[in-house]
């Protein structure tokens, strides 16, 4: 597999994250901020729930007709003078993009925010070939300077404090004139000035696409900064890189999805810039790119179609599941060791990288369901995580101790007499041992529980065993009832 993951160290990374005070303060803001904003935006639109149903149905319809939609999209792009390239896997996608950059003699490439190119590790690949890549989304730019990966699919630098940003800017931009880097405003103004110079000197602009519209051959990007628009308008070449699942049939379909996207992502009614790009500039146009290419990336997506994981292809990358996930909220994105963290990443990453490397990701969930409750396209994320757990169980991946304990539990649970006798005895012994203290600070074999928690003692005896045989036989009615 060519998809890079470091998910095997999930436990160690999450421990580090929990000890990282600045990260915890950043995550605290995320947990409170974005979920509140979403809630307010949803409350302001009475039709929101109905729109979620519609968005999910629309995505399902598109996936069920994906070949037709992709062909229609390709035909429209060509009719407008653009080129479409098909990449079965990451390697092919990287090769296609490199060849395009070389065709146009590119030395500097601008990047709009694109998770697919993160998935492809495109920057590393192009830089290895001597082509400089400059991320233009503010968060992506910061993360790139720090040689980190994004920790969130919508807010890449959510894990950093402004002091961290100031430090990186001082290192990379120099310290001419003792710049003020004490406020977020000053830092943003500095990034704006630095990036403006890059915008005016780049050869190729690479963006992602939130949607690709089959009807018109347009790619759509949604941003708040305007970086994507400068990226695709100033250089002479625009390359839009997107997953094959991002196609939608019509303009009206895009309207429907846009209604749920911004609200779910940031709690905005609409993002600042929604941009429909169709072909290269027209002969009479004063600006815009002279060439327009779309790279359609499969990279494991078609393998999910028609399987129990198909619903994951509905995903529109809004990040709401990350913002509402209590596990993500504690450990942040880097703990997952994948460019796709959180609930959506825990479903997608095993598909892209293989389950043996990533078995922690579907396991590290309480199944609280907060992700599915907010997903704008109603992906049943806990159900899909459970599917991965089933595959892990079948493949005997994950901890053997847990498997044995579970098997033992299953054995007793299928033998009620043994089960109840054991339960009564065990709970009595524990209650006796605890005595008036009422709970345990340590339990033999229970370190995982008691390291940071007491174990409250059972009351003693079991409920079922305390019932009289005659009154509560499995078939007889409770005669003492009124």
């Amino acid at each position: 597999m060519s998809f890079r993951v470091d998910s095997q160290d999930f436990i160690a990374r999450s421990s580090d994250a929990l000890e990282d005070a600045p990260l915890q303060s950043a995550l605290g803001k995320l947990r409170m901020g974005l979920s509140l904003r979403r809630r307010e935006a949803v409350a302001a639109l009475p039709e929101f729930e109905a729109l979620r149903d519609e968005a999910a149905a629309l995505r399902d319809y598109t996936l069920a007709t994906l070949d037709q939609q992709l062909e229609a999209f390709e035909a429209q792009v060509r009719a407008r003078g653009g080129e479409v390239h098909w990449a079965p896997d990451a390697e092919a996608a990287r090769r296609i993009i490199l060849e395009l950059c070389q065709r146009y003699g590119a030395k500097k490439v601008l990047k709009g925010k694109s998770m697919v190119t993160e998935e492809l590790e495109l920057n590393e690949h192009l830089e290895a070939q001597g082509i400089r890549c400059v991320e233009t989304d503010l968060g992506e730019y910061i993360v790139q300077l720090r040689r980190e990966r994004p920790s969130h699919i919508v807010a890449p630098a959510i894990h950093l404090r402004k002091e961290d940003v100031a430090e990186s800017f001082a290192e990379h931009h120099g310290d001419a004139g003792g710049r003020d880097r004490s406020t977020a405003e000053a830092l943003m103004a500095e990034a704006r000035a630095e990036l403006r110079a890059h915008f005016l000197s780049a050869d190729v602009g690479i963006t992602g696409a939130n949607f690709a519209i089959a009807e018109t051959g347009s790619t759509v990007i949604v941003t708040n900064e305007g970086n994507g628009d400068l990226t695709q308008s100033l250089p002479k070449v625009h390359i839009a890189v997107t997953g094959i699942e991002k196609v939608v049939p019509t303009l009206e379909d895009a309207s429907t999805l846009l209604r749920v996207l911004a609200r779910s992502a940031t709690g905005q009614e609409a993002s600042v810039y929604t941009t429909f790009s169709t072909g290269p500039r027209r002969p009479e146009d004063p600006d815009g790119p002279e060439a327009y290419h779309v790279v359609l990336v499969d990279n494991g997506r078609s393998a999910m179609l028609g399987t129990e994981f198909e619903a994951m292809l509905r995903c529109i990358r809004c990040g709401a599941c990350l913002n509402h996930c209590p596990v993500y909220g504690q450990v942040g994105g880097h703990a997952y060791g994948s460019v796709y963290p959180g609930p959506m990443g825990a479903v997608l990453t095993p598909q892209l990288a293989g389950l043996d490397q990533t078995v922690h990701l579907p396991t590290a969930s309480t199944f609280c369901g907060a992700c599915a409750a907010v997903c704008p396209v109603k992906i049943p994320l806990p159900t899909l995580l459970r599917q991965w757990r089933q595959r892990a169980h079948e493949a005997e991946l994950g901890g053997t101790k847990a498997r044995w304990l579970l098997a033992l539990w299953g054995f007793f649970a299928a033998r009620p007499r043994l089960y109840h006798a054991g339960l009564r005895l065990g709970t009595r012994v524990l209650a006796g041992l605890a005595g008036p203290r009422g709970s345990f600070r340590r339990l033999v074999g229970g370190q995982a529980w008691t390291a940071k928690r007491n174990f409250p003692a059972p009351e003693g005896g079991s409920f079922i065993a305390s019932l009289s045989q005659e009154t509560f036989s499995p078939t007889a009615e409770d005669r003492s009832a009124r």
Partner: protein
Amino acid sequence: MRVALLVSCLVDGLRPSVGAAALKLLRAAGCTVVVPRAQTCCGQPAWNSGDRATARTLALRVLDQFAGVDAVVVPSGSCAGMVHQLPEVLGASHPRRAEAEALAARCYEITTFLVEQRDYHPGPLGQGQTLTYHDSCAGLRELGVKTAPRILLERAGYILVEMAQAETCCGFGGTFCVKYPEISVAMADEKLASAGQAGASLVVGGDVGCLLHLAGRSERSVAPLAFRHVLELLVPEREQPRALGQGTP
């Protein structure tokens, strides 16, 4: 109305008083109650761990044990939620799928059952005691249990103060709490902080698992809170066990 009580493992073994309270409340609400003696576990730990075969074996046992009643009532949103998933556990083509669907359709979390099916009004018990309610995830998001426990507590005279994070997962998550104890405890701390900010010293919930986890963590703090299953507060004080979270090991 003839109802069967699905006690749940944690109530059965660790908090039998909750089972006794369930029995008493269902009778007081005019039900004829049977407690199938051979019931053990609904299979949720196996199902959520990906062990479909064991989950299926236990699912069939549940079907056997809980046939022939008007309703199956559970003092746990989590286990009631599991019963609702039994058709999925068996799969689309299983010969007993229809039976599982029928069982799911007549299975209720107990506070919802008492309020919506029986319009039950508990006697005055609360005497103005202040408490805050933790919505456990499965009950809340799989079954929509939100108002029913609050209605019962308020009818009984308790004063409810809501915490900001009432609907956020406490970090128990079944086997999650021992597979990822550090994350689990960090989630508990956030919940406990939110409960503390609400200004109530008693935290009430509908699932013993969450309560054991929160109570165990709270006991390690400087100012432990008290924790109770909602049913404990709907029977007279003398029938209530010692609150969780008050241990002194």
